[in-house]
């Protein structure tokens, strides 16, 4: 299994160039994770297709040349856009067994690649920890200066500044072009809300998924009584987003919830819990929000006076205080560690593996997207540290001019 995260080291402040490099490193790791995840999705899809082909081919008594050609096209499509050779994946001399074997191999390769994917996630978190540490230190110092500034200037002094933000990183739903404070407040709420989702729900959701996966793979084989199943099915249908399916084994109840998570069980005693969880998911109406903001927009905003400027500093430094951002990173790293521990080493049936792969891929996407959000949040804070220093300097200069008069 993949090595554990090292979160014990103290943060230390990075220089500007180093900080930039850390951002780049983290971004690249994110790209690597995305690529691995996409490949995993493809591999899973290919394996499932091969299972389907094997299923269709099983019903053919004798394969005609044209059907053989269709199977060959299928093989080519299964490896489309990859470096794989269709003939290596599925031998030329096509037989039903070959498809099954190929599917097994793809699935087995896929499972072997999981620890590496988690490793990449872990490295992103380590990098993020350094970034938040450095930005935290910088923000703290800025915040102290802001406090001093507040003490010195109790009068409201006009400070009309136009600020061009080349880092319009987070598009707050309440943002109003030109009104900086409202924009900032919106972003703060965005970050807070999102981070609370990370710590409270998403992580629990992933863990739940992984645990249910473990339960499914390693669970006992007690048969679910049909009557019992029917009874719960109608209730579960009310809360399931898509539907409830049973596996080929006829034992596993699989519910897709509104937030995309899945709960599975093959034990009738688990039904009440499962239903309860499903209902909770429906009631909370929580769904994972993907970050799709453009990081390079330009926004022109205006500050009105020195007090507004001080508020800005407070708002930004607030984001790192209250254990919102920095605290989440540490929390997140612990969660990933526990997920690493919960990865099952092997599974029992083909369907279990397919299910597990599916869950794993979802979990990776979820974790990676959350890290992306935090990366954006870090950039926002970093950009504001600099921005606010400039605003503070300008405001001080206005104040001095006022005093001179």
């Amino acid at each position, binding site marked *: 299994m993949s090595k554990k995260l090292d979160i014990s080291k103290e943060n230390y402040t990075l220089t500007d160039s180093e900080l930039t490099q850390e951002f780049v490193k983290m971004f690249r790791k994110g790209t690597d994770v995305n690529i691995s995840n996409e490949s995993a999705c493809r591999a899973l899809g290919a394996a499932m297709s091969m299972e389907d*082909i094997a299923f269709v081919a099983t019903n053919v008594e004798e394969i005609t040349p044209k059907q053989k050609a269709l199977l060959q096209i299928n093989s080519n499509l299964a490896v489309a856009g990859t470096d794989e050779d269709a003939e290596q994946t599925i031998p030329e001399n096509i037989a039903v067994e070959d498809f099954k074997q190929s599917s097994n191999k793809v699935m087995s390769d896929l499972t072997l690649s999981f620890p590496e994917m988690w490793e990449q996630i872990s490295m992103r978190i380590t990098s993020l920890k350094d970034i938040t540490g450095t930005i935290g230190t910088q923000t703290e110092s800025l915040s102290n200066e802001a406090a001093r500034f507040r003490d010195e200037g109790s009068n409201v002094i006009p400070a009309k500044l136009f600020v061009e933000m080349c880092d319009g990183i987070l598009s707050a739903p309440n943002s109003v072009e030109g009104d900086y404070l409202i924009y900032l407040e919106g972003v703060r709420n965005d970050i807070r809300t999102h981070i609370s989702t990370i710590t409270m729900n998403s992580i629990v959701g992933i863990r739940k998924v992984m645990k249910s996966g473990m339960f499914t793979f390693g669970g006992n084989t007690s048969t679910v009584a049909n009557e019992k199943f029917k009874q719960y099915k109608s209730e579960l249908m009310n809360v399931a987003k898509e539907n409830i399916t049973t596996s080929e084994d006829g034992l596993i109840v699989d519910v897709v919830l509104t937030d995309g998570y899945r709960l599975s069980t093959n034990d009738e005693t688990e039904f009440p819990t499962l239903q309860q969880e499903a209902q909770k998911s429906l009631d909370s109406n929580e769904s994972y929000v993907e970050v799709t903001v453009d990081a390079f927009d330009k926004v022109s905003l205006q500050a009105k006076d020195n007090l507004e400027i001080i508020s800005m500093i407070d708002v930004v430094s607030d984001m790192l205080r209250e254990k919102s951002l920095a605290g989440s990173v540490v929390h997140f790293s612990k969660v990933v560690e526990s997920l690493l521990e919960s990865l099952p080493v092997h599974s029992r049936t083909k369907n279990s593996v397919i299910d597990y792969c599916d869950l794993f891929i979802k979990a990776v996407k979820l974790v990676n997207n959350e890290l992306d959000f935090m990366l954006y949040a870090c950039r926002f804070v970093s950009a504001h540290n600099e921005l606010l220093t400039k605003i503070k300097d300008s405001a001080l200069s206005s104040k001095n001019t006022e005093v001179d008069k």
Partner: protein
Amino acid sequence: MKYIQVSEDEVKLSSQSAMITNALRAEKIEQECVSTQSDNDRALDIAQSLEDLHIVMKSMEAPKPVDIALIQVMANTAVSGTPASATGVLPATENFMNKQVSTQGLLDRIGLILNSFTHDISSTFAMLAKFIRSIVILLRENRDTLIAMEKKFPLPDNPADDIPRTVTLLTRDSKYLTTPAGVVSTYGDILNAFNNSVDSFNIISKVNSVIGSRMMQTIRDIIPSSNIDSPAALLEKAKVSNENLFNTSIDLWSNTVSRSGLLAGRSPRNADSATTRVLLGCHYLSLEFKADLAASLVEELSLDKRSEIIRSFKMFSVSECGPTVPGEQVVVSGITNAGIRMLIQKLKDFITDLEKFSVWCCTTAEMTQSQCETDVANISKYFSSESTDKMDAAVAEAYRNYIQTHIGDINSIIKLVVNVSAKPLRYANDLVNGLTVVLNNIPETVPSGNYNLPKIK
């Protein structure tokens, strides 16, 4: 010397957030290029498979239920692992009961895929040009940092006063402080590693310029920029297009290999100098669009480890070494102000070379983009029912084959441009960044002795 046009406003970025923004912008563009490339590879493979299906369907009188089931699986396979819908790739399966509807439906789908592919290719070249510009901005930022850094290390009047000192550096990205022999321990180690990397890059940029020029000529030869409506001319071009690319590859390969002395009686296994390995790696990549050919040549030369060759292509010796723990202390002796200034000067010269190389890369990307744009309009009409009806079946098929081959060639060219321009540039930029960080960490120390300090009036 022509420089890439980057406005002064874009260049003058010294602040922390601007540095981060620029660096991440370059990463983002590169990521988009890679992602589009991967989508394009897949789109082409799918188009080819649909063409195969089209051929099978034409000869199939009445599909059996099993055939329909296999076609349905096919549609699912084509979109597996993507958000695309199966019906977007294949006509509805019930249409497969009607031969004419299904075959024309397939052609329509192929036309759509290829048309969208050509649009994507054009935008990928534009993105590549944008990426290269972003790298130039980053390099210029580094040059500004280096210029500012020089002031930290003044030269004494008497060189003897510039006494070598030992400094302790804290590693962040440790690969710039390691060599194949281990962690650097002297100034000489850093200088050697840097020289090796730069030498390798210079060789590769020269060779790549040659490859690029030759490839561009070939592209112009095979891409029908004006008259695609002449079937005879088109078929003629179709015949020679693959052959041209093939011959160009062989030609370039043989020239360079003979120049490197590999075929002059020396065993490739023994000729493992950095230069030779770089050349091999470079040519492996130039031949990537003929992967089988490259593989057989590699085998012929007894170099059985492909990955090793690709690694050689990356060639930056300092960036290929094993990890040390970030935050670890590295003690380096023999540091003088003169030595640091020499390294800074070398880095600045390297940046100038990279800018020249960037001009070539940008030109290649932009020229190829304009070639691609001439093709966009021609793609879909050869897959429309109108043109199929009007044309003789054999000619229509020849047209389609030609367009697919031609599009495949363009796809290969984009890979070539990425491999010989964007990737080396990024590696080089990483090297400059890494070493700038290392140099920046060297504590400012004024050696004893006299300096040419400005006199106080």
